[in-house]
């Protein structure tokens, strides 16, 4: 299997009010966490179009993290509920495509949960590392060789 030094590439879609602020708090509180998750700031987890997730996997991401406000705490009232409903459908779709659903994670991180955010990133990075590289482009290319 893959060498131990495999560093997963994870795209994180973080909502501006809770999770991005939580990530900021982790930073200002000097909490260490792996740099594998690179954040894309969106206004709300409800803005995360499932196309973004698929695009990330297609472009070579090994994992995707979506983080939003806790249910009931959404800055935009219920955007996070939209994410909550889309993600299980998306996981079913990904698994039909042959992408392990565990590579996609939806979590709730409030603005005050810097430590929880760091812990989440650590745990998710290890989880994706254990799954190994996705290498979607190579997988598809191998499939689609004409001969």
């Amino acid at each position, binding site marked *: 299997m893959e060498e131990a030094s495999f560093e997963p590439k994870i795209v994180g879609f973080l909502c501006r009010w809770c999770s991005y602020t939580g990530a900021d708090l982790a930073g200002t509180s000097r909490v260490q966490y792996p740099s594998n998750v690179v954040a894309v700031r969106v206004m709300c987890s409800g803005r995360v179009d*499932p196309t*973004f997730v698929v695009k990330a996997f297609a*472009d070579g991401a090994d994992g995707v993290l979506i983080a939003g406000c806790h249910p009931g705490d*959404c*800055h935009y*009232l219920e955007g996070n509920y939209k994410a909550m409903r889309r993600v299980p459908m998306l996981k079913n779709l990904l698994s039909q495509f042959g992408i392990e659903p565990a590579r996609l994670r939806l979590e709730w991180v409030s603005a005050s949960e810097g430590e929880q955010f760091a812990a989440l990133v650590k745990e998710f990075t290890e989880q994706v590392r254990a799954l190994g590289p996705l290498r979607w482009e190579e997988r598809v290319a191998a499939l689609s060789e004409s001969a």
Partner: protein
Amino acid sequence: MITLTIDGKTVRTESGTTVLNAARGAAIEIPTLCHHESLPPYGSCRICLVEVTQRGRTRLVSSCTLPVAEGMEVNTKSEKVMRIRRMLAELFLARCPDSKVIRELAAQFNVTKSRFRKPVGEPSSIVGEEGCILCGMCVRLCDDVLKIGALSFEGRGGGRRVTTPFGEPSDVCMTCGACSSICPTGAIEHHRIWEHVPQRIPFEFEEGLTHRKPIYIPFAQAVPRVPVIDKHTCMHFKTNGCKVCEDNCEAKAIRHAQEDEMVELDVGAIVVATGFQLFDARQLVRYGYGRFDNVLSALEFERISHASGPTGGKVLKKDGTPPQSVAILHCIGSRDENYQKYCSRVCCMYSLKFAHLIREKTHADVYNFYIDMRAFGKGYEEFYKRLLAEGVYFIRGKAAEVTDAAESPEEKGKLIVIGEDTLLGLTRRIPVDMVILSTGIKPAQGAEELARLLSLSCTQGQFYLEKHPKLAPVDTASDGIFLAGACQGPKDIPDAVAQGAAAAAGALALIDGGKVVLEPITSEIDEKLCAGCKICIASCPYVAIEFDEEKKISRVIEELCKGCGTCVAACPSGAARQRNFEDVQIYAEIEGILHPETEPVLRE
């Protein structure tokens, strides 16, 4: 106008007025037993007889039934009148020897003994010891005014009495109690009319410690300070009768026909100040609230200790005696993993206030069972120190239980508070006469519905979420909606006042500015691509998307859009876009993250 003479005094009054009312208007007292503003004159008691001289003829007439006439001469205290009143008093006294009202009336005419016998006859099942004078007010009130008709006269001569049909408990009686309240001798025991014991109406403001009528002033400092009618208990709304209050109101200010009104206002700013409710201590059965008479909630004690409260500010137990010892249990429902995890912030300080008042008013021993003493405000710590000096006991540890099971003679008849004293490392049993539960603060009833109505976010306890905990504690995520007071979280009066002032200032600033500044992240819908599927409308939590019936497409109302972008992710055709968070921008970000070595391509 009609001019007449009463006891030599010239009186001018409206035509149609009775002599009784004309006399009363001229401050001439005529005794009555069967007269009431809400009932038509009946003249049954005869005690209001006066001597009237008209056109040279003198006669004795009941003044309550006699209309005034021009040139009439009335004598209310002539020898003849007084003689007859004495006779009547003797007759009443014979009938109702135990009635305080009758004895007092008789005493006015120097009658203390009656020469007559008590009439023979079966007593009425609904009349008590006081005795009935057969004035019929109860029958007329129940029948004519309240339109119920549960009572009537029965029998003749000495056997005449007021009763229910067949003397059986009435099934039409609505236990309003009007009969017993109008009875001049206080004889009617209306709970006998119906089998039920009538429920008195608890006075909400006094936490049910006292009772109120269906028409009442909500509380002493109500603004405006006018009475209100409780539609659920007012008899008028049950029988379409009564309106006794209307008859009695000189200003004619009572209108039963008034309907609840929905008033629609177009406003530019809203201040939400919906307050809080108290934690219901009944949920914590172990503290005995609702089981033991002298276990009180904080608000009940607040009323008891208040000068305008039910005891006039005297700290008294249920039996009316002052307590020798009182325990105050802090954090009831607050800082509790099973109920409210948060601190209610105000209880420590009001508990200290209670302790101080009890010491001041009764010199009773006061025991505070507390977890931590949170005296966080200006002057609060000093107040705590002062109470330590006043000899109030502080036991560090949350009380576990309140019981009446005595284990020693000194505990007998007391409430025993059991709790751990964590500073001494002991379990304590403190016998006291009164227990006050410092109940915590909860979001107001209906807070959730209002949140939905105003699109407010809530923290997990359902208190409304401010825009920013430090930098915008009065604003909400919806521009133009401000928070004031405990709807945002537990707070004490100075904090609530400060926040209220800030909210008002925020609202005024908006009104004054006349302009609204939007963040440049609103959504827009591409007319060329939108097919009018309306999915974005369903997705918008701010109702910021409307359907253009003419063009058959959706349209963003930019003033309402808050820029969450949910509609963009929801739009299946890609017609919805979010400014500065365009799909292509995010795609470029994804590519930048995953392929930092290649220049991202911005497509359109």
